């Protein structure tokens, strides 16, 4: 049995769980959503990947993976800025894992990954899709020299409760607005705050940003073979923040009973589906 993952802190609040195997096959990147954090959003993923009570095939898959948990200030900046920051993070450790990331003295632990899995929750799904689209556009622009890695285009994309189809506002004001706007005594006061947040405007389902993201991704997914342009999608049955939908070629799983926007991506001893969904996608 492989040793458990080793926790390594990275810049900007990001961290990695490095496989106990010398040359893990794959890298898995986790991108949290609005108001989330790399530890809270993916709560218990970090320990359950090494859980000995899990199924052998699932545990074996995760033991053969380095896990990278991306952190960003989701309440500030725009989707494009989040995306740029994520791509820089990814390019730093994928496809070649540098020794500097590990801060380890053993040079044999630097190696090239064979597989990539990109996992997003809520706004994190939008960030990932924007990043994939960015690199797919580069790859499609054959008349121009490619100066950045397009390796992520061959990755697998797994999305929990993605906000690609619009999301109701979140955060202090957003949650209050979402829950209380039907109350006639409070609605007028909340209306003044409705358009106060840049990111919320971008996540409205009718926003030009999301329409472009959808149109361009669907177009490229239909005309190229890049696997990352097609996602596996999972919502909870009690989703209350985002619109439950998918892009045209995406594979959507049946919604998870008893799970909502926040809990659908949090495995526990009795809810191991998130681990299997990341591993296999739809019909895990």
């Amino acid at each position, binding site marked *: 049995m492989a040793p458990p993952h080793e926790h390594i802190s990275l810049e900007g609040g990001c961290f990695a769980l490095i496989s106990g195997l010398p040359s893990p096959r794959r890298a898995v990147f986790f991108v949290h959503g*609005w*108001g*989330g*954090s790399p*530890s*809270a*959003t993916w*709560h218990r993923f970090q320990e359950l990947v090494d859980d000995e009570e899990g199924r052998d095939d699932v545990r074996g898959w995760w033991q053969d993976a380095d896990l990278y948990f991306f952190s960003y200030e989701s309440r500030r900046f725009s989707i494009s800025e989040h995306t740029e920051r994520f791509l820089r993070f990814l390019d730093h450790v994928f496809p070649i894992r540098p020794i500097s990331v590990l801060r380890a003295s053993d040079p044999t632990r630097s190696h090239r990954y064979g597989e990539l899995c990109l996992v997003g929750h809520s706004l994190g799904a939008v960030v990932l899709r924007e990043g994939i689209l960015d690199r797919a556009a580069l790859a499609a622009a054959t008349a121009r020299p490619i100066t950045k890695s397009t390796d992520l285009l061959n990755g697998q994309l797994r999305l929990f409760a993605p906000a690609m189809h619009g999301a109701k506002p*979140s*955060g*202090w*004001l957003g*949650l*209050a607005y979402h*829950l*209380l706007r*039907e*109350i006639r*005594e*409070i609605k*007028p*006061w909340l209306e*003044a*705050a409705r358009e*106060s*947040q*840049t990111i919320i405007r971008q996540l409205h389902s009718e926003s030009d940003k999301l329409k472009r993201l959808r149109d361009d991704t669907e177009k490229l997914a239909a005309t190229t073979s890049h696997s990352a342009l097609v996602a596996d999608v999972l919502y909870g049955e009690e989703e209350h923040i985002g619109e439950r939908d998918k892009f045209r070629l995406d594979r959507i799983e049946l919604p998870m009973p008893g799970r909502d926007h*926040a809990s659908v991506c949090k495995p*526990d001893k009795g809810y191991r589906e998130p681990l299997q969904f990341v591993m296999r996608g739809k019909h895990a």
Partner: protein
Amino acid sequence: MPNASLLIEYSRVAFRPAVAGWEKAQSSSEAKQRFAAASLIESYGWIIVGVQVTAFPADLARQVMIPHVQSIAAANVLAERESLFQSGLTAQNRVQLRSEETFPPSFAAIYPSEFAEFPEAPSLFSQWCLESLAFAQSDGGFAETLNFALDQEWEVVLGRLRDEPFLLEVATDSERSLFEGYLRALLHMNRMADLMGVDGARTASWPARALMRVSVGDIHGWRLNLTSGLFETRFDSVTEAVEARLRAEATADAVELEKNGFIRGVRELRLRYAEALGYLSIEASD
């Protein structure tokens, strides 16, 4: 026509967990015991009223309750001693539990003329019952904390609400969000007030509606007990803290929200809710 499936579901998600919660609380703090007692007596009350309005079949309700009569009686003793309910509910329960009859007479038998004009009583009861159940399951410990937390615990909870940065997601399942519980409490007050109101209802049904909502207010009102000084003081503190946090977030986005506008809206909502549940003296607390 009594709805057996609704009773079975209510028993599964509310009544039996309340019995189990009461039994488990015997080895817990007094505050936990008070909350468990109130929860069980409320569940018992919903079944009683459900049978009285013929929303629940009496035979099935009897089967559901009989194995747990001792627990109900013990919880009722505590609830009566601690005055957890108003309007003599626990005294009525005590008499009922000693009676050979499991249930009091139906509303239609006690108030024949009123309920002759109100055939939709069972379906309206079902809506109230489901809404109260949804709130009890989603309040994140709000009712328990505001009603029963010790002062020291309360100060910690309130301080966290005032000072800590808000995360939509919590780090562990055991952490509870007072903020979200508070929002869900407001939502519940609004829905109950709407459901219990008479907008669009036939005038002939009003007396029967009033009788039903007073009964429901007696069993359910403890959760948001706006006639209790302790609950009301804490509720007001949360309201002020929430407005301050909401205004601060808006200000950071260069949006100015009217000071005390939220507090005023909540006060008006409270009035509507209190009127719906039959409270008459809510203005005195303003």
